[in-house]
């Protein structure tokens, strides 16, 4: 039905530490095993070097896809044995695979990893093993329960405790994530999910456009960084002030099954200490010779001095989309060449930022002429009270 690019991208990112999916998840659930995770990551990663990546990568993507489909059925049949088999198949497949990013990132090559590498490697696993694909199975099986969480005055209070995910439905026939996020307020987002009731995993805007799906059949889930932010948005979103293309969407708390009620500590840390956001700003370091006399002609700026000729946005999109799906790339108003990238997920931005900051990584070489930092999320704006 949908081309598997979405899977492929996420799988690609997952493949950063893909083989460790099960082990790390397992260890995370058992506090105090952090060091052993690191050891496993290093050893597994060493084993991947030298393998050809693409075939394995595609295979893994297919496996995940297959697993999703099969797992949906297994949910209905309540067959946990089958699920485990598929899971081990997945992990075996992952073990055979050499992650196409492991080469470029070389996260575990170093004898003494940089601080934060371990945490990042854990981060890379989490979104896709726990929140991404595993969760995706619940989209089908738990669909009816999602309806139960509608915002009646009673369950609004009940559902809202610790909840940080708002579900938007009854959208206008044509909308975009950009247009929704422009109107949303309350605080920064951790990630954005776009879902269709008959598709058992989140989809992308590209899928929607390519398949000509009407947006009023879709659901958007906004994962706020904190429950307080989600509450703020809900307060605002339920007023008539919140409209998207002239339509007031329906807002609900998302089903508890679908979400992690609290952020992973590592993401929380990145948000708190590094102001991590879904959006990265790239600003060119090159100093243009712009003095007033040369750049202004009769009071107007020079059209050539203030114009960068060799800037290829398609290439940048291609490069960065390997680290997660991109909602959009926008120009930034600056005296130096500048643009910003909006990811679906804060994890992608954190990983990209980390890679660019890390000496000798593929991205740091590619973007050596650019300063990169997190931008304020467009949803992180205060909303006017009534």
């Amino acid at each position, binding site marked *: 039905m949908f081309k598997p690019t979405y899977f492929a991208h996420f799988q690609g990112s997952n493949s950063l530490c893909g083989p460790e999916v099960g082990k790390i998840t397992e260890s995370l659930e058992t506090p105090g095993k952090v060091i052993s995770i690191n050891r496993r990551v290093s050893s597994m990663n060493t084993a991947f070097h030298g393998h050809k990546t693409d075939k394995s990568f595609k295979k893994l993507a297919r496996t995940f896809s297959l697993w999703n489909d099969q797992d949906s059925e297994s949910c209905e049949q309540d067959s946990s044995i089958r699920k485990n088999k598929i899971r081990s198949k997945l992990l075996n497949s992952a073990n055979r695979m050499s992650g196409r990013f492991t080469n470029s990132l070389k996260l575990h090559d170093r004898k003494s990893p940089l601080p934060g590498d371990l945490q990042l490697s854990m981060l890379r696993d989490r979104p896709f093993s726990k929140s991404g694909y595993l969760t995706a199975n619940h989209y089908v099986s738990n669909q009816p329960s999602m309806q139960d969480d509608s915002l009646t005055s009673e369950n609004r209070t009940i559902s809202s405790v610790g909840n940080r995910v708002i579900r938007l439905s009854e959208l206008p026939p044509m909308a975009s994530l950009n*247009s929704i996020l422009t109107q949303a307020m309350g605080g920064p987002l951790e990630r954005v999910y776009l879902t269709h009731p008959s598709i058992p995993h989140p989809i992308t805007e590209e899928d929607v456009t390519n398949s000509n799906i009407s947006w009023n059949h879709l659901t958007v889930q906004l994962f706020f960084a904190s429950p307080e932010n989600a509450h703020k948005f809900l307060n605002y979103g339920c007023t008539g002030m919140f409209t998207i293309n002239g339509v007031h969407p329906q807002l609900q708390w998302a089903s508890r099954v679908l979400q992690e009620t609290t952020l992973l500590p590592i993401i929380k840390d990145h948000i708190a200490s590094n102001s991590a956001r879904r959006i990265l700003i790239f600003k060119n370091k090159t100093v243009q010779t712009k003095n007033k006399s040369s750049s202004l002609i009769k009071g107007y700026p020079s059209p050539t001095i203030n114009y960068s000729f060799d800037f290829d946005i398609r290439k940048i999109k291609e490069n960065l989309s390997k680290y997660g799906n991109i909602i959009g790339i926008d120009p930034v108003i600056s005296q130096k060449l500048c643009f910003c990238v909006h990811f679906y997920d804060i994890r992608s931005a954190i990983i990209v930022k980390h890679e660019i900051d890390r000496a000798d990584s593929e991205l740091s070489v590619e973007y050596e002429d650019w300063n990169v930092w997190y931008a304020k999320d467009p949803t992180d704006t205060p909303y006017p009270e009534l």
Partner: protein
Amino acid sequence: MISSQKPIGNKKADIEVAVKKEYSVYSKANFYLNSRYQVQQVLGKGSYGVVCSVLDLKSENPVPLAVKKVSNIFTREVLLRRAIRELKLMKFFRGHRNIINLVNLDIVYIKPYDGLYCFQELVDYDLARVIHSNVQFSEFHIQSFLYQILCGVKYIHSADVIHRDLKPGNILVTVLGNLKICDFGLARGINHQFMQGSSRPRDNAITNYVATRWYRAPELIFSRKEYGKAVDMWAVGCIFGELYGRKPLFIGDSQMSQIAEIVKVLGSPSKEVIMAYGSHLAWDYFQPPKPQYRPLKWAHVYPYASGSALDLLSSLVCWEAKRRLDVEAALSHEFLSAVRNKSQEPKCKSIFDFRWEKENTSLEDLKILLHEEVTQFKNERENNSQPN
């Protein structure tokens, strides 16, 4: 606010109500606002009134807003009509990413503060400021800016409305490159089904004295005939050129010099074009023995622009309105393919109904209508209901 204030004539009562409601005065701009708003500075003044930036202190974190006060509306029918038109259109187009968002409204009847106060989201820059400063552009910047303008224009045109004053100064830009069309003061509906049935012929007349001169389409200058959405597309073409040239494409300091500037680039129009204008002015201006000009190549005007950019430009900035690309065709142009996302190109859900213009003919009718509009907006804003 509005609902608690009495109409003109009971000044003392108004002041008493205002004091109770804790209104305050900002004398530099003759603003009279609820004390929840703290005026920051005057952003601009014009014939319509004044715009100030304010902070809304009622929220947990102060919300920056722009407040446009439309003045002299209670004494001049034409200004009141224009204010209602703008208000209705801003309500109608709310929620589109590339159109400025109306946040709140207020009417003040107390002189000298009287007028309609429109509270809008505050945006960092306008496009004129961005173009005419040393902001670094690339083709991607220009593609993205043009694309967003066209998305906004598509939404407006899909409601059979023409903006009639598109120019960089009326396009706001956030620091993260989100463009928003504003100022619907000259906009109007053009759907014929709402034009019929007026007892007064002038209600159906559509004035040609619109658009800022540098962005005014030639048919607005020469023709007395009805014009359409193509006047906006001309303006979009001029803005597109300005994005490359970093200065307005046609800088005329009078109506005639404006034409001269256009002729320098586009060359003299063909006889067919002149005939189509159906005006003596056009005939006298262009026909021999008046000098005839050859068109310049766009590649000479903007030598650093790509071929596809120049192709799109030539399809927007051309004499014949019929030959100009409409907004859908412009959006489909190859130049925009790198930034295009069809999900961002919605159409308005209905045609803009402007029958009220015929149904409300006196100043008193219009005052009542304005009051109703503001009250309705406030109700919609507060209730969790479908906005109209």
